[in-house]
Every structure is written in C-alpha cells, then in structure tokens.
C-alpha cells in the first residue's frame, strides 16, 4: 500500500529503543536474574502494581540457583511499614503535630554491603513497590538524567563538585555507587517513569551507559518493564522484516525510519493521513487529542476482538478471535523470550483470527494491484 506501520511502542518504550540505537544495551532473559541477581533496582517503575507476578517469579521473591528468595526480609519490612502507618495515623489524630511533606532520604542500610538479595526502588514518589524495597531513593521529578550521570561519575571514583543531585545528598549517592559496584550481579528495571520524564530517550541513554560502565567493575544488566501485551512481539517482527522496530514508512517502496517523522502520533498531528487501520490497540484513549481527532475524521478500520473507544469511533469494525483463547499464536515476553499461545476454546462460528482477516485483505489488495500473485 505504501503506508506507514507503527506499533504501541511509539507511545510507551519508543524512547528506550531510540536510545538502544545510540548506545546498545546489556540485557538478559528473566531467568538469568532469578538465578543470579543480588541487587535489583526498579527505576521509575512500580512492579507491585503494574507487573504483580514479576517479583515472585523473576526477582527478589524467587529462589534461583545462586540466590535465595528474600521473603523473610519482605515480611519484616511489611510489618515495619504497617507499624509506621499506624503510628502516623495516630500522629495525625494528635493535634499539634504536622505531617512531614517530603521525607528526607535516609542513608543506605547495612544490608547493601553484605551478600544476598537486595531490592532498591528509585522514584519520584513512594509507591507500593517502594514499601517492599530494602531501600527507597526519592528523587526530584525530572532530575533522573542528572542522577544517572552523577552515578556514572561516582562509580569511576570521580568526585562531584555539587552538594546534592536531584535532591539527594552526595554522601548517599556515594554509598549507593559503592553498592552498585560491590554486587555480584545487578540489574536496573526501568519503567515509563524514566522514559517519559524530562529528557525521555536520553534518560535511557544515560541509564544504559551507567550499566555498561558498571560492567567494567562487576556484572550489570538493564531491562525495560514493558506493559502492552506482546508489544515486544510487534517490535521483533517489524525488525526482522523491515530492519526497524516501529514507525516504518513504506511510502517510497522500501522501509524508512525516523521517529518524529515516520511515527504515527507525529504523522497524525500533522494531519498527513487519509485513512487508518488499527489492529488490537486503542489509540483513541492513548494518543494526544489532536492526533486522535485527525485519525477519526478519516476512514478508520478497526480489527479487534474487544470493543474499545477506538472501535466505537471506527467506520468499519472487524471483530476477531482472542489470541491465546480462541486462536493459537506466539507472544514475546518483555525479555524477548517467545512463548506459544494456545487455543483453549473454539471461537464463535465464522469469526476469523486477526491473521486470517489481514491475509484476506492483503490478498484482495494484491489482486487489485496485480502483485505477487
């Protein structure tokens, strides 16, 4: 057709991908972390709420070949936090005592200088995951880049000429830098908190560079915490077929790629399309308003098993089967491990899978254009 093909990473982990183009990435499959990671850092991500099974399956709360599960530490910490909360409630009820607005960052607990699994959360606010962690570092919003760069200095034993970075005193940063170097395998999981804060892909650029530098001293890995179902799969297939992971423009007869120019949000914002085909995603609820209104004013076809705000706005809706329930297929886990999806029940009669629907459309297009018959 000479259209543009994009996928949901354009609105979530696109920045991570762009930074990988510039610096690469030191990563792994999740089992590697289960067996070996003793320092697990969640940066701008909240696994307890967003990836509920993550901790017990892959990191701190699971037992690997070389590392034990840290359930005990978790139970202790939860008890402490419960007590804290109760106390603060009492304090709130006591007249005259005011609540502290921004808790000062504490120094690193001794645990971080011993063997065994440790969990650290770095975020702008205290999340549930932060409560679970052995240590929580609260940073000023939009200062992640400065903080990462400061760590990159400190792990080389360079001194900083400032007293604090991102609201954290340099002494604490130095302790954390020591903990980073002294673990036997460390990992940073980063979430949208990092990719969408000020600087976007450059935050990831710096984070990956930090991890790369740390490999001079110990073993360190980094992984994006990806959300959308099988978005990794879309990236993967797009990359092997076209060379590019998302935002691929076929208008000149071959794949071209330049996010910002060929990414769907930017194209819609500039109102350069005259038709849209949406497959199993929901741009109407995720895209900026301008982009959405330009999308729906043109002919819009939606292929989706479920009703979404986008399908409601569509001119044509092609309902399809659920992959992994009514149709088999493959999904790529966030660490790029491909998993087969099974068919459990029969789909309603006559309902095609998304693959079948697209193949039929393609066949018709090729027939009309007299291509590849």
């Amino acid at each position, binding site marked *: 057709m000479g259209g543009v093909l994009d996928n949901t990473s354009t609105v979530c982990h696109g920045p991570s991908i762009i930074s990988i183009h510039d610096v690469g990435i030191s990563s792994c499959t999740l089992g590697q972390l289960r067996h070996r990671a003793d320092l697990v850092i969640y940066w701008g991500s909240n696994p307890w709420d967003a990836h509920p099974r993550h901790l017990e399956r892959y990191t701190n709360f699971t037992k690997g070949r070389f590392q034990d599960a840290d359930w005990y530490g978790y139970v202790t910490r939860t008890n402490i936090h419960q007590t804290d909360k109760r106390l603060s409630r009492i304090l709130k009820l006591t007249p005259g005592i005011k609540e502290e607005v921004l808790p000062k960052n504490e120094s690193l607990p001794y645990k971080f200088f011993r063997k065994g699994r440790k969990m650290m959360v770095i975020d702008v606010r205290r999340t549930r995951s932060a409560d679970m962690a052995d240590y929580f570092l609260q940073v000023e919003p939009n200062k992640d880049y400065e903080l990462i760069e400061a760590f990159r200095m400190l792990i080389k034993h360079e001194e900083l000429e400032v007293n604090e970075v991102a609201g954290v005193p340099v002494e604490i940063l130095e302790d954390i830098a020591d903990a980073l170097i002294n673990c036997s395998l460390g990992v940073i999981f980063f979430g949208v908190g990092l990719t969408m804060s000020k600087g976007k892909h450059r935050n990831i650029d710096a984070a990956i560079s930090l991890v790369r530098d740390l490999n001079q001293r110990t073993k360190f890995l980094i992984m994006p915490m990806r959300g959308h179902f099988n978005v990794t799969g879309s990236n993967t297939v797009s990359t092997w077929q076209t060379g590019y992971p998302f935002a691929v423009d076929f208008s000149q007869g071959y794949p071209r790629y330049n*996010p910002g120019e060929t990414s769907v949000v930017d194209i819609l914002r500039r109102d350069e399309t005259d038709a849209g085909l949406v497959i199993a995603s929901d741009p109407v609820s995720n895209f900026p308003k301008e982009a959405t209104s330009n999308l729906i004013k043109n002919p819009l076809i939606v292929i989706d098993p479920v009703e979404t705000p986008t399908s409601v706005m569509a001119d044509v809706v092609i309902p399809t089967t659920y992959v992994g329930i009514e149709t088999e297929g493959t999904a790529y886990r966030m660490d790029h491990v491909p998993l087969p999806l099974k068919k459990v029940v029969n789909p309603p009669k006559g309902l095609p899978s998304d693959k079948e629907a697209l193949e039929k459309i393609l066949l018709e297009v090729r027939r009309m254009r007299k291509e590849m018959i």
Partner: protein
Amino acid sequence: MLTLTPRQEFKVPIDLGCLIPDAIIKKSIDEIRSFRIWEGNRNVHLETLFKISKEANTIDDTIHFTGDLRKIRRIGAKMSRGKIVIDGDVGSRLGEEMKGGTIIVNGDADSWVGSMMRNGIIEVKGDIGDYAGAAYRGSTKGMKGGKIIVHGNAGNEIGCFMRGGVINVDGNVGIYAGIHMNKGTIFIQGNSEGRLGAQMLQGKIVVSGKIPSILPTFTVDNIVKKTKISGEEIAGPFYTFIGDVADNGRGKLYISQTHNPHLKQYEKFL
C-alpha cells in the same frame, strides 16, 4: 534562476531530495519539469505539484522557492554547490548531508536542519526545530563541517553527535544542546534550557545567556574574559567547564558569568 511555487496546499509530505543545484545545471526547463518526486506514496512529476519558471540570464545554479513549504522535506539534500533561497517556512531535513553551497530560509525550518552536513552554509531567519546538525538514528556521524546560522530559536538536541563545523543560534535553545558532541562549535546567544553538552567528548559550546544548571558531570575550569568563535571575539566573562567526565570527555562549556549568578558556588573550586 529557477523558481518553484506550490500549485496547492500539500497534505502529505513531499520529498524534494532530488531537486538541488547540482541536478539542474545543464538541464532544460522541460527536463526539470519532468523530474520524478515523491508525494506521500505517489511518484509524480515535479510540475504536477509546482509552478516552475526559469529566468533567463541569471546564474544557473540558484533555486528559489516561495509559498507554503512546510510539508516539503529534504530540500538541498546532498547539494554541493549553488544556492537555494526559500521564502516561507520549510519542512524537515533541510540540507541533509549537504556538501557545499548555500541555503537561505526567510522563515522557519523544521527539525533535522543540516543533519550529517559536511560543508556549506545554512541560514535560517526564523526558528528551527530539534536535531540541527545531528546524525541519523544510531549513527555517530553528525555534522562534520560547514555552518548553520539561526536567527531565531532552536529546539532540543542541536548538534547531537556533531563532529565539526559551527552552529550559531541568536535566540534560545532547548535541552541537550551538543549532546554526544565530538568536536565542532555551538554558539548560543540566548538562553539554554539545560543539560548542555551532555555526554560530549570534545568541542566547544558557548552560552551568552542564562542556563538553569550545569550537569554534575562537568568540572569547573576557569573564568575567562572572552573567547573566540571562528576568529570572531565574543565578550564574556565566562565560566569554563570541562566534560562530560562520565564519558571521559574533554569538551568545553563557556557560560556567561553575568547572566548566571547561581553558578557562583563553583567559584570555590577555582
């Protein structure tokens, strides 16, 4: 001189990479009219989109655009000679991989001005977008030579992976000017939004206006009264910083002392 005016308002992006002074010399007007260009996913003749006229008795290798050119990309790509004058706003990738000649824009330009350029001059009277003088995604080969002059403001990440040449911005710039820079010079007469010279290896960035803060990975070096950019003297005084130390960089930042009193804390290290 060749003059082009759009026949109508464009909806889809137009790729005009093929229409450069190098390509039009010794070409008749009819040959030029039948140049094939991309309008979105359609391959069309140049004359279907533009009114084209050629003035006699003027030098052969000047191209003049007028009208609304915001959808037009890659004007002057890979040109090595001649002159392109644009009256109006222009789309992205202006002067991409330019090797010589001059482009003058009497209006604004979008992102990627002079990306990967090797020589020549681009002068934009208005504002420009992001990534001026940058490298293509994944590449470390940004602008290597030549000059980009912007009279208005510039966006983020100008001079990204720059390897030489000069970018001169009269107005303000966004964040990350000179990121990953490796040689070359950026002169910002207005303000910078910060994160200046992030991860730079070499090169020189001068800011005559304000900057919210310096990255913690730069170390203060000196205070100088003035500095020079392509032979021209720029009055200070400036704080000078060296970095980005996180990348073992030896790049230099010159930051106005007068406009940035909050940087006084660094003076204790001097």
